[in-house]
């Protein structure tokens, strides 16, 4: 889950920082270097252990590779050209984003109503249900994905259930298919959507719904005209989180998708640890990183600008 939790917090962090962390009041300073001294250990650590490795990865992506000579220390953009030209890579990236998009849609479709239902629950139930919804975030993503592998494959419980209900006539193939990956990823990521919508619901004045009722609006109109517009920012920022995490997810597609159904992250993994073509793997990683940063920062800007007028 660590992978998952991380981007979620980032999105919140970028969204929240400039406005909510107002600069502390000025006061006479004895020694201007104190803050730098305090952050020095962290800065040193991050410079050596984050910036240097990332720059090195970028440089690695410019190297070339041959099966006999290994990594060759030349600078060129051949790897990028290869990926852009090769339809195999297109297919992998396209699949990655298709899966991420569908997972995002499903999370919004199920997570947002669930958050709303949770908020309307009464005290002891609400805490318990919230625990059940958020708890999976703390359970290892490997264990959770294993659960889906068991449900889909070995026990075939999902197919038995669906056929028992008469919904399908013949078993559906879930293992090693996009459908399976999408279902498992939705399960892994939907708590983030609930959390995000939950946070925006916290800011919704409960009296606002009563106000709309008193003005003659029916329950559905209240939902559509009053509640939904106010939680759209929550759904959007939840979508950014879920999309970014789904696009770079590794463990779930690796277990459910297997070696045949590749996504960007499993492709990079294979290039590194099986084919040993490090420069190509690094290129995939760099592209993934760029896509991720563009999506998170770009969408956050967009959401912030769009809703600045209304929500602060």
């Amino acid at each position, binding site marked *: 889950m660590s992978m998952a939790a991380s981007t979620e917090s980032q999105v919140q962090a970028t969204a929240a920082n400039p406005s909510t962390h107002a600069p502390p009041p000025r006061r006479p300073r004895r020694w201007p270097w104190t803050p730098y001294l305090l952050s020095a250990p962290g800065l040193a650590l991050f410079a050596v252990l984050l910036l240097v490795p990332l720059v090195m990865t970028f440089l690695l992506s410019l190297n070339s590779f041959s099966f006999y000579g290994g990594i060759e220390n030349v600078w060129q953009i051949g790897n990028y050209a290869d990926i852009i030209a090769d339809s195999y890579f297109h297919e992998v990236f396209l699949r990655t984003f298709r899966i991420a998009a569908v997972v995002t849609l499903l999370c919004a479709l199920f997570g947002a109503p669930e958050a709303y239902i949770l908020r309307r629950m009464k005290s002891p139930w609400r805490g318990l249900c919230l625990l059940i919804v958020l708890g999976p975030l703390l359970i290892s993503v490997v264990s959770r994905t294993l659960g889906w592998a068991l449900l889909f494959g070995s026990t075939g419980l999902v197919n038995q259930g669906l056929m028992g209900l008469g919904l399908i006539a013949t078993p559906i193939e879930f293992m090693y298919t996009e459908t399976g990956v999408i279902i498992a990823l939705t399960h892994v990521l939907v708590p983030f959507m609930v959390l995000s919508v939950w946070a925006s619901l916290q800011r919704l*004045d409960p*009296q*606002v719904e*009563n*106000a*709309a*009722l*008193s*003005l*003659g*609006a*029916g329950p559905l*109109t209240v939902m559509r*005209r*009053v509640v939904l*517009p*106010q939680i759209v920012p929550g759904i959007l920022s939840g979508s950014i989180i879920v999309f970014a995490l789904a696009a770079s997810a590794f463990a779930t597609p690796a277990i459910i998708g297997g070696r045949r159904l590749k996504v960007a992250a499993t492709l990079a993994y294979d290039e590194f640890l099986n084919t040993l073509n490090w420069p190509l793997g690094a290129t995939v990683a760099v592209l993934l990183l760029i896509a991720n940063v563009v999506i998170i920062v770009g969408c956050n800007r967009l959401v912030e600008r769009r809703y600045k*007028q*209304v*929500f*602060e």
Partner: protein
Amino acid sequence: MAYLVLDQLTKRFGNWTAVDNVSLTVEKGELISLLGPSGCGKTTTLQMIAGFLDADGGRVMLDGQDLLAKKPNERGLGIVFQSYALFPHMTAAENVAFGLEMRRIARADRDRMVADALKLVGLEQYGDRHPRRMSGGQQQRVALARALVIKPSLLLLDEPLSNLDAKMREEMQIELRRIQRTVGTTMILVTHDQSEAMALSDRVVVMNKGRIQQVATPQEAYDHPANAFVANFLGRTNLLPGMVGGGAGGTVITVADSVWPVAQPMAAGPGALAVRPEKIGFVDAGGLSGTVLARVFQGTQWLFEIETAAGRLMVIRQHDGSPLPAERERVMVGWRADDMAVMPADREAA
């Protein structure tokens, strides 16, 4: 004929009775306040009238119709919420227009009515602003316009002024009074602020622990509180323990070394006498004797604390140049019999 009738309205939360057999009639066009400390049941009563809470017993009749049988969105009441509950994603004009949209009023009529409503509350310039960009007072006015524009049969105001600062609150009190005179809507105001209730209402309903303590005009309730709770809650008062008994010229109450006539018939026994600080004066004879403990200058008036055999008294005298006693001076205080209220001794007093 009574316009709004609450008949033995009751609400329980578990073992606790929040509203206990509340009955009340309100005339058309009247502004009536439900006044009391927090937890007295006034907001719960309002929520039942509005339909956000189900009553456990009793009836609410509005203009001859059973209100409790209708859903909240079919009651046609205007409500101004304590938090204003404006729709943050809509502009002021859109907020005001919402109720009209729900009533499927044609665009042109709607725009005109919204403009009129905004003008009524003095916000004609602010129609396209979002609530978050408005001050508390402006938001308050939008909430008022939104509730009034649907021409409600009854306007409910839930602590409408509690989120405003003191100056703003005074302005809005005058504004509310003006609007009420203009549109003539029947209003029920819920408040814990006695000065607000007295400034605005035709009648006040003082509530405590889920029960009505007194229903009267503000002046009547202030001058002749029905019991110790009302006396204490409506402004500062001196509550002195005494003994009621028969005297030569009728019933009297004896407080320490002083004796006061009691106008209403009362049984003999322990009683209490309530008298406002500003109604007490310094007299030469026939009053209650005591010693000045402290005196404080407050600009337009002096505040005295007097120690007497019946307890400590608070006395307010105008700062008009007349001679006033000094600290530690022996004095005698008195008041007109009309200015006091006598009530049976109440264990719940204060």
